[in-house]
């Protein structure tokens, strides 16, 4: 992890050699010119933002009070009804809860399994590169692909999971994975575990620059492996834990492929997340306005999560 130096002292030397002028006006002119340059440099960014965020939000807000189709003609105004329907839909509320649940599980898995595997790998095993690639693979191939394969594996009769369980004699554990909430959630948790590759990378990178010399004294004091992991290494990586939590949380709101291609929200839409909810609504006949209202609610939540992230970041400085 590249540590950054604190912001340097303001420019002082250069201006001292110029002929003296009324300091105020030069500074203002300087700042004015800086603002102009800055805005010029930022134009591409601001342009993209203006189109794909600001205009988009405005468009969403306008559409969310209508009932319309994908061609956006023949829109009829329905006021706040879409919002009312979205916020009272048990399925929607459940999908928000699912988002938070999956985020929590991802974080828990990352902080335990991810941390553990990263330390094990960093302790210097052979074939390190191979293991990193294997653990990172599910996170790097298109999730639509991985989730599709995973979903097929869960088929009750011939799916690979049940078939393998039967072959190794654990047939009693074979379930109707997509038929009941419990097994379906368990399956999705397993899918989340597969995506632990990225947190492993965070830990690995920080471990390489962390000050692990304290391990030597711990060894002299007679600490065993468990204590070295739990009591020394874990607290040492405090900042990384924060990074992992925040990045997993941010990423979890963008989840869509994971559920859409594996369980498709089964059983009965109970494992659906906000992403699948909005997507299904968008492609329903004449429900684009409803989908927009749902999207607005999701956006508000997402911006709130972002804001929390920024506040925490700022406090950390």
């Amino acid at each position, binding site marked *: 992890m590249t540590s950054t130096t604190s912001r340097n002292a303001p420019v002082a030397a250069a201006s001292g050699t110029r002929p003296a002028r009324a300091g105020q006006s030069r500074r203002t002119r300087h*700042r004015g010119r800086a603002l102009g340059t800055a805005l010029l440099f930022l134009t591409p*960014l601001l342009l993209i933002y203006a189109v794909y*965020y600001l205009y988009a939000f405005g468009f969403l807000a306008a*559409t969310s009070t209508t009932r319309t189709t994908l061609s956006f003609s023949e829109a009829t105004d329905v006021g706040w009804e879409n919002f009312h329907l979205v916020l009272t839909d048990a399925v929607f509320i459940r999908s928000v809860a699912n988002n938070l649940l999956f985020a929590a599980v991802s974080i828990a898995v990352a902080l335990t399994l991810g941390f553990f595997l990263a330390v094990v790998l960093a302790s*210097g095993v052979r074939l390190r590169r191979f293991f990193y690639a294997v653990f*990172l693979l599910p996170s790097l191939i298109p*999730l639509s692909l991985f989730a599709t394969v995973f979903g097929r594996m869960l088929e009750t009769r011939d799916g690979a999971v049940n078939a393998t369980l039967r072959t190794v004699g654990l047939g009693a554990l074979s379930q109707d994975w997509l038929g009941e909430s419990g097994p379906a959630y368990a399956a999705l948790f397993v899918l989340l575990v597969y995506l632990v590759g990225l947190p492993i990378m965070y830990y690995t990178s920080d471990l390489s620059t962390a000050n692990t010399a304290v391990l030597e004294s711990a060894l002299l004091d007679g600490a065993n492996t468990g204590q070295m992991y739990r009591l020394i290494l874990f607290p040492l990586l405090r900042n990384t834990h924060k990074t992992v939590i925040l990045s997993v949380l*941010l990423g979890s709101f963008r989840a869509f492929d994971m559920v859409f291609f594996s369980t498709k929200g089964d059983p009965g839409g109970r494992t659906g997340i906000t992403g699948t909810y*909005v997507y299904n609504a968008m492609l329903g006949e004449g429900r684009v306005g409803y989908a927009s209202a749902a*999207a607005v609610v999701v956006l508000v939540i997402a911006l709130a999560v972002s804001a929390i992230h920024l506040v925490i970041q700022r406090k950390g400085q």
Partner: protein
Amino acid sequence: MTTPTGPLGLLRQQRGHTVGAYVILAVGAVLWLFPMITAVRASLAFGGPGNYLTVLAGTFNGVSLPRTFVNSLIVAALHALIVCSVGSLAGYTFSKIRFPGRESLYYGVLIFLAVPAVAILVPVYWITGQLALFNTHIGVALPEAALTLPFAVLLLRNYADGIPDELIEAASIDGAGHGRVYRLIFLRLSAPALVNLGALSVMWSFQDFLFPSTILKDSGLTTAAQAVQTIQSGFGPTPTQTSQYFAALVLLAVPALVLVVTGLRFITSGITQGGVKE
């Protein structure tokens, strides 16, 4: 992954640690490879290795697999280009140009970090229509870039903060304006970060399903992630064709696999540089 063993190597000296480590890693590797192994086995079940040739050469629902790789690559390249150029300009500006309202604007840029693609899907559909960008690669790359830019700005500003301001001042004494500093000094110095960002952008673009599936309707423009769904109807309900479908899925994973093997280093250091500052 060049990690100096250092003190962590002491863990190896603990009794049973090495053996335990290898056992856990081996079990983990088997579990992690299990899904793809299942897919490969299913693809060979009816029809054998010939399925792969059939799938490579044929078109399914109008989609040809090699074509999807090309399309994914084009979109990914455009995406990376936009993100790196726009992001580096912004990163330099926020770090090296002091202007009123800088921090507020910066947070204003970063607040969009968590926006999900599906939330802006409806407006993107409308915007793409208004800009006449349906069925174009740039039409997909632009909204993808919009979603990647908050992270890019974060990453590049962090990196730029690590470049000492003295270098900038030295240049401005010589009379160079920000434009020349950016072009001649900053870009060269931030090349490592840009490479990381570029690799990450390519990876994320490869994974994107939502935007290609709404914007690219022509069968000759389908991308790899999108093809997972599009080719499904091209395989009829016989066991052989199901095996061929799995063969297609395995093949669709190949570009990402290649990327992982070659670009692992860049991807991982790119991710970690975007994290919390010390």
